[in-house]
């Protein structure tokens, strides 16, 4: 294995389900505490202390949910595709499990971004749904998640399902920028110069700092849910192994 030395040691350790299960278990409480503090603090800040927007009034406060969930939905797809690629290339089981655990979290974040965007649209544009470029791309991203999840549940063999899903996720990842630009271009063609939800020339600090807090809180939330799901998947996959039996019997 001399030719593979350029990869750090923890990369190989991660491949051990037991090690990964334990490290996730150790990290979980820290991330849970961070998530709770940041979520509660960020929500209070964004709801009560951040100033209202001079144009949109208090409906602007929806940004503190809409933007973090949209960012998370996108980066979750990225992680899913990268983990899938690692699983395909290095045949690493843990990467497959990470990819599988990502899909439902990302899909629910896409739903949240879509719903909050739609609710925001009502006071801003006067209707519950507008074919805005960002909302439409988010809808497509949601469809991509649905496709990945449908394919994963349709294939019975777990390893085949993981590989097929990884290929689909990679194809989706390559296509996301193309879809995004085509949708943006289509939008400018049909609705020239509409009022954009989140594009502000310059946001004052008292507005973007709570937004940043919420984004970090959402990432902590993502880490917590991902680790919980990953631990479940490891337990399921490794249920016949010795260390899981020990763990079960010690309970």
């Amino acid at each position, binding site marked *: 294995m001399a030719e593979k030395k350029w990869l750090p040691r923890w990369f190989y350790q991660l491949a051990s389900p037991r090690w990964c299960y334990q490290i996730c278990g150790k990290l979980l409480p820290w991330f849970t505490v961070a998530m709770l503090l940041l979520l509660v603090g960020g929500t209070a800040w964004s709801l009560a202390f951040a100033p209202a927007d001079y144009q949109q009034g208090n409906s602007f406060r929806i940004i503190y949910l809409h933007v973090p969930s949209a960012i998370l939905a996108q980066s979750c797809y990225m992680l899913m595709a990268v983990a899938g690629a690692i699983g395909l290339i290095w045949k690493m089981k843990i990467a497959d499990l990470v990819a599988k655990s990502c899909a439902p979290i990302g899909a629910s974040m896409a739903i949240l971004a879509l719903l909050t965007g739609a609710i925001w649209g009502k006071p801003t544009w006067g209707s519950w749904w507008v074919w805005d470029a960002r909302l439409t791309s988010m809808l497509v991203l949601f469809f991509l998640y649905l*496709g990945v999840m449908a394919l994963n549940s349709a294939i019975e063999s777990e390893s085949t399902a993981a590989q097929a899903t990884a290929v689909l996720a990679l194809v989706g990842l*390559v296509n996301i920028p*193309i879809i995004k630009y085509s949708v943006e271009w*289509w939008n400018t063609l049909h609705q020239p110069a509409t009022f954009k939800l989140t594009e502000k020339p310059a946001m004052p600090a008292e507005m973007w700092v709570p937004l940043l807090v919420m984004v970090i809180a959402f990432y902590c939330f993502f880490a917590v849910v991902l680790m919980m799901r990953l631990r479940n998947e490891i337990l399921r996959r490794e249920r016949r192994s010795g260390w899981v039996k020990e763990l079960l019997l010690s309970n």
Partner: protein
Amino acid sequence: MSDLYTNSGPVAGQLHIGRLFVATLRRDLMLSLRRKSELVNPLIFFLMVITLFPLGVSPESGFLSQLAPGVLWVAALLATLLSMDALFRSDFEDGSLEQLLLSPQPLYVVVLAKVLAHWSLTGLALTLVAPLIAVMLFLPAQGMPGLLLSLLLGTPTLSLFGAIGAALTVGLRKGGVLISLLVLPLYIPVLIFGSAAVQAAVTGLPVAGHLALLGALLAFGLVLAPLAIGAALRISVSG
């Protein structure tokens, strides 16, 4: 290019890359031409979907001519999608797909030939029928070149992306609905640029930009899609 394959490894039975392409193309075309019903089904579907719009929306000519670019493209897209499931299905069922994967021939070329054969019997046929149907939707005459060219450049991309979905689901008994779920989001850019090209042609605007974008998508698909199709086929067949 050909040296790359013939000289790289002295594997017995390896064909010249061009001959391999032509042989696969001929085989697939011949097999498809024998099954006449599957050949015309997408065309009939195309015609029927188009018929639904005047019935469901309005037969008024001014309205339909406005709707025509989008409707024609959506119907062509759905008709391609419908035919996608059959692309690898029969080869998978009679075992020839597995033989193909085991053979020393470069899979990229074989897959490309298969998709080309499929496209020439669905996408190309749809493109040739489209002007006839465009007349029924009162598409103005100046939109015809735009329609033909955009379909000619866009439908191969649809076939390439659709083949990824077909390859991923070929091992499943109920692949049909799943394919559309997997592939439809990927079709969105082609739909946008395709219908925009027709719209531009109708209003007399230059179509070259739209066609260039469709061509770029096609080039992109030609290079990358066969790799994904090949990987997906290996996964589906071995699983």
